[in-house]
C-alpha cells in the first residue's frame, strides 16, 4: 500500500510540475486574448458578431505570422467565453479567463448589464479590459484597467434629443424602457434629462417601463398613446424593438419611434420587417456608404459570413486593434503576466487619435474614447442608411 501511495504521489508531483513548467513556456511563446461574449441568451446575434470579428482579426494576425512586439513575434490565442447575456456569467467568465487562462487583455462583454459587473472583476485583478459596445458610464468609472471602444450614454442621450428637436421640432416625448437592464435604464434617464433641458420640465409626457423578458407592452403603449406624445424613444435591444414597434402600430400609435445603438443589429430588420422602415436611431457607424478601411472591413466580413456586419462587429474589430496597438507599443513583453498587464494598460491609456473603422478615438482619463455618433435611418429596403453625423 505504502509503495503505491508513494508512487502515485510522485506521479502527481511530476504532473503538476509539468503543468506549471509548460504553462510558463506557453506564456512566453504566446499571447492569450480573452473574448467575453453573449453567444447564447437574449442577444445571440451580438455574440455572433463579436466572435466573427475576433476570428477575422486572428486570421489577419496569423497571416502576418504572429503579433510583433519589439523584436519578437508572438503567437496569439483567443479564449472565447459565453456569458449567456447574464451579469453573473460574465463575471464568472472574466474570473476564469484571468485566473485560469491567464489572458493578457479581455475584449467584452458587450452590453452594459454584463460589462459593469465584469469590469469590476477585471479591475480588481488588474487585467486590462476593453468593452467594445458598453455605453453606460459606470463600466469604466474609477476603473483604471477598464476601457471601451464606443461613446457614452450621457453623450448619446443628448444626441437623440437634439436630433429630434432639430429634425422634427417636437415638444412632447415618450420613453419606454426596460427597468431591469442597465443600458436602457441609463440611456432613458440621460435622454429624459437632455429632453427636459431642451423643452422644459414636464416635456417627457410618458415615462414607462417594463422588465426583461416581458413581451406584452400594450398597457404601457396605450398610456403613451393617451399622453399625446409626438414620438417614442425606445432604447431597447433588437428582440424587443420588433415587439414594441408592432404593438404600437396595432394600437394606432403612428408617431415616429426612435432608438439607440442597440437597434443597430442585423437582426432588427429581420424580426421587425416593414414596420421598422423609415425609423431613426443613433449609433456608432453606418455600413451603407462607408469608405476606406471601414469599407474594406465590411466587404471582407460580408464575403466571409454572408451579411453586412453590425456595429458590434465593427466595434469589436476596433477594440482588438486597440489592444494590438497597445501590446505592440509596450516595446517588449516580460513574460510576467502582472507586469505585462500593467504595461498594456499604460499603453491603452496613452492612445491618441487612433484611426478606427468606427471613427477616430483618443482615450480620456476614465478610459472612454472621444468620438462621433451617427444617426441612421432604416431605409425602405431595410438597410441602415447614414443620415447625419453628430460630434461632441
Amino acid at each position, binding site marked *: 500500500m505504502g509503495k503505491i501511495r508513494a508512487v502515485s504521489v510522485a506521479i502527481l508531483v511530476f504532473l503538476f510540475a509539468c503543468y506549471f513548467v509548460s504553462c510558463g513556456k506557453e506564456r512566453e511563446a504566446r499571447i492569450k486574448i480573452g473574448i467575453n461574449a453573449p*453567444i*447564447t*441568451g*437574449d442577444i*445571440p*446575434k451580438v*455574440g*455572433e458578431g463579436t466572435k466573427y470579428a475576433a476570428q477575422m482579426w486572428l486570421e489577419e494576425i496569423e497571416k502576418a505570422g504572429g503579433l510583433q512586439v519589439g523584436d519578437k513575434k508572438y503567437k496569439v490565442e483567443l479564449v472565447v467565453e459565453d456569458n449567456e447575456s447574464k451579469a453573473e456569467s460574465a463575471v464568472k467568465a472574466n474570473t476564469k479567463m484571468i485566473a485560469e487562462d491567464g489572458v493578457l487583455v479581455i475584449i467584452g462583454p458587450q452590453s452594459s448589464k454584463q460589462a459593469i459587473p465584469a469590469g469590476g472583476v477585471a479591475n480588481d485583478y488588474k487585467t486590462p479590459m476593453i468593452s467594445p459596445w458598453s455605453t453606460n458610464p459606470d463600466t469604466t468609472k474609477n476603473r483604471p484597467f477598464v476601457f471601451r471602444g464606443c461613446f457614452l450614454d450621457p453623450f448619446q442621450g443628448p444626441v437623440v434629443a437634439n436630433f429630434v428637436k432639430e429634425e422634427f421640432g417636437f415638444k412632447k416625448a415618450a420613453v419606454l424602457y426596460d*427597468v431591469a437592464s442597465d443600458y436602457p435604464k441609463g440611456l432613458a434617464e440621460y435622454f429624459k434629462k437632455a429632453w427636459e433641458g431642451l423643452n422644459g420640465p414636464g416635456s417627457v409626457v410618458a415615462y*414607462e*417601463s*417594463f*422588465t426583461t*423578458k416581458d*413581451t*406584452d407592452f*400594450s*398597457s*404601457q403603449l*396605450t*398610456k403613451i398613446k*393617451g399622453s399625446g406624445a409626438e414620438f417614442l424613444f425606445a432604447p431597447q435591444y433588437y*428582440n424587443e424593438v*420588433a*415587439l414594441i414597434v*408592432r404593438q404600437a*402600430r*396595432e*394600437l*394606432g400609435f403612428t408617431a415616429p419611434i426612435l432608438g439607440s445603438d442597440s437597434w443597430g443589429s442585423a*437582426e432588427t430588420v*429581420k*424580426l421587425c*420587417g416593414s414596420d421598422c422602415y423609415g425609423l431613426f436611431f443613433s449609433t456608432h457607424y453606418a455600413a451603407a456608404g462607408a469608405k476606406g478601411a471601414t469599407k474594406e472591413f465590411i466587404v471582407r466580413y460580408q464575403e466571409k459570413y454572408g451579411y453586412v456586419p453590425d456595429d458590434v462587429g465593427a466595434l469589436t474589430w476596433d477594440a482588438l486593434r486597440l489592444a494590438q496597438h497597445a501590446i505592440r507599443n509596450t516595446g517588449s513583453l516580460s513574460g510576467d503576466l502582472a507586469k505585462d498587464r500593467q504595461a498594456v494598460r499604460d499603453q491603452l491609456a496613452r492612445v491618441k487619435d487612433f484611426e478606427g473603422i468606427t471613427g477616430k478615438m483618443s482615450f480620456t482619463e476614465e478610459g472612454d474614447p472621444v468620438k462621433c455618433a451617427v444617426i441612421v435611418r432604416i431605409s425602405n429596403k431595410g438597410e441602415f442608411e447614414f443620415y447625419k453625423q453628430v460630434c461632441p
Partner: protein
Amino acid sequence: MEFFLQNVINALQWGSFYALIALGYSMVYSILMLFNFTHGDIFMTGAYIGFGVATALLILTASLALPGWLLLIVTIIISMILTSFLGIIVERVGYRPLRDAPRASAAITGLMIGIILETGNLAVLGAQRLSFPALIETVTYDLGGVYFTNKKILIVGVSLLMMLMLHAFIRKSRWGMAMRAMSYDYQVVPLMGVSLNIIAPMTFAIGSALAAAAGILYGMAYPVLDPYMGILLGWKSFVAAILGGRGSILGAALAGFMLGFIEIFTAMIFPSTFRDLIAYSIILLILTFRPYGFFGQPYSTQLRL
C-alpha cells in the same frame, strides 16, 4: 373611456394566454396531484412546432396560393396533434416511472425535462430568435379611438372556443367522465376498469395540445420566438392555476383572464415600473383570504368545471 376599453381589449388578449396554459396545469394536477412544471416549456415547444409547420406549409403550398386563414387552421391542428405526442412522451418518460415516488421528485423531474427542452432547442436551432411567419394579414380596426386587430379577435375567439370544447369534452364524453372519476381517486378507479395508463397520457396530451394552440396564437401576437419564452409565462400561468383553485377548469380559465386584467390595469393606474410588484401583491392578498383559490376546496383535488 376609450382608454379603459382599449385596456380591456389588451387584457383579454393577454389573459387568453394565461388561461389556456393554466388549464394544462390544472388538469394534470387534478388527475395525478402534481404540478407539471414542464408545461411552460411544452408551450414553448408548441410555438416552435407551430413555426415549423407554418413554414413548411407556406413552402409546400406556395404554388396553390391558399388563403391564410386556412393555413392557420391547418397549422393549429397539426401542431396540436404533434405537441400532444410530446405531452404523452413527457408523461411516459418523466412522470410514469415516478408515479409512486414522493411528489417533490416528480416536480423536480418536470423542471429537468423543461431544461432539456430549452437547451435541446438551443442546441438544434441555435440561439438566434425566430420570427413567426405572418399567416394572415394584420387588419387594424379603429372603433372611436379604440384600436384592435383581427388577430386580437382571433386570439380571444380561438381561446374561448378551445375552453368550450374542453368543457364539453369533460362534461359530456365518456372519456371526460373517466377523467373526472380518476380525479376523485386515482388508486381506486383503476379497479373499475379505467386504466390510469390511458387517462394520464390523455390528460397530458390535451393539456399539451392547448399549450400548442396558445403557442401559435402567441407567435402571431408576439412574433419573436426564443427558447426561454415559456418560463415566465409558465410560472405566471401556474399562479393563475392556483388562483383559480387547484383542479378547477373554470377557475383556471377565469383566473387566467383575471391575471391578465390585474397586470394590464395595474400598469394603467400605477407607474409601469411597479406593475408586477403591485399585481402580484394583489394576488398574494387574494390568496391570503382565499387560500384555496376561487373555486378550490380544502383536501380536494377533484376535476371540477
